[in-house]
């Protein structure tokens, strides 16, 4: 069992602590949109949520990352997927999100969508987070679009029970505020 056994027991109660405890960069979302990746994209996140920003990505949550999370990832053109196949493109943009959660997403739907005034896609996924004897089903929505300086993916993840439905409209509203530069 070794360390995996430790995780099996502790993660059920303490996993979010591992996510947040070392995150002094979280701040409340203000009234103004947030510009990131050297101004390559701007987005207005839901009121009262918290966010932390890295060089190429933005993470936001209200109840903690395990209960609701918006994640925006920018891939510069040099590292961005160049495939023209929609499913391959969707998978390429999904990879960093999957790596974050360390679990496999199952595709439920993949449809064209307009993102920041450009042709993109909207995909829905499910996944199961297993910690010891506990397993919680998550639902995800991922938008993807090719921008002038790279590719962008915006994901929303929450437990299927209650939290997904509650914050989904807030995520959809945030996607509509995305501006690419």
């Amino acid at each position, binding site marked *: 069992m070794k360390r995996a056994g430790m995780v099996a*027991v502790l993660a*059920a109660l303490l996993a*979010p602590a591992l996510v*947040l405890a070392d995150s*002094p960069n979280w701040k409340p979302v203000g009234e103004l949109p947030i510009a990131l990746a050297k101004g390559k994209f701007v987005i207005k996140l839901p009121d*009262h949520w918290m966010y932390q920003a890295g060089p190429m990505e933005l993470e936001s949550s209200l109840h903690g990352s395990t209960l609701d999370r918006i994640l925006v990832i920018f891939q510069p053109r040099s590292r961005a997927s160049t495939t023209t196949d929609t499913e391959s493109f969707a998978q390429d943009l999904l990879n960093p999100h999957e790596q974050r959660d360390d679990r496999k997403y199952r595709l439920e739907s993949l449809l064209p969508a307009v993102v920041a005034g450009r042709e993109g896609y909207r995909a829905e996924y499910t996944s199961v987070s297993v910690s010891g*004897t*506990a397993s919680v089903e998550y639902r995800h929505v991922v938008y993807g679009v090719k921008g002038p300086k790279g590719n962008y993916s915006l994901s929303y993840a929450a437990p299927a*029970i209650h939290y997904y439905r509650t914050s989904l409209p807030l995520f959809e509203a945030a996607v509509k505020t995305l501006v690419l530069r």
Partner: protein
Amino acid sequence: MPRILLAESTHSAIQDCRGCKSGMKIVLMRMNRALVSLACGLLLVGAALAETRKVLVLPADFHVTTLGAGSTVTPNPEWTALAQENLTRATAELVRNRADWKLVELPELEPADRDALNEHIDLYRVVVAAVVDLTNNQNGYWRRNLEHTEFVLGSGLGFLADITGAEQALLLAGFQMRSTDGRKVLSALANVGSFLSRSVIGFQVIGRPVFELGDAHTTLAVIELRTGKISWLTQREVLTEDPRVPEEAVEAAHELFAPYPRKSLLEVRR
């Protein structure tokens, strides 16, 4: 029953008063009788008004593991089953002990309902972990932002309210990691080594955290079954009791429940 007692007591009081020659005593006795009657009446009305709430006790979600000499953690299904049984009984006793609560035990559930309950208990673990993390978080922004949050399990447990008539449920959850004998021996040796190193060479060579003797975390929550709202939540970050022993499980549950209905983890943050 109280009415009969009252009638008997007032009757004997009147009998006593027949021998009294003082008019004042008779007046006082009549006033006393009136006050007693009034108090008893109020008690009867109060008892009728104070409805006892049905409270459902959910099966304790408690897991016991062993922590070996090499820091290996192994789930122990036998100990877990024993602790769960004892802690569920202990939680039921908490409900029985309250005059305003009426115990409702979980009936046999259909497989689909059983799955739904388990899914919500699993979600409870995630929710409680988030609450504990955010309330303890060193980042003050998170703590201040908690006023905008609502930690719930959704409305999916409403079927339990329909089945049992209970509007609330009590759930005890957590884990205890117990050291093996080998680890205890190693820990003792480490302590001796630490003492000697401090005495002989002036500083500690072996750190105690290397041989921690275990860990535990327990929570107890009152859950509104129709909304999934966690209306009261408490936690203990240490567990000195052994929940495999029935009496100690009762002690552990009582310790958790002692602050009810005050000091909810969800209120402290506001």
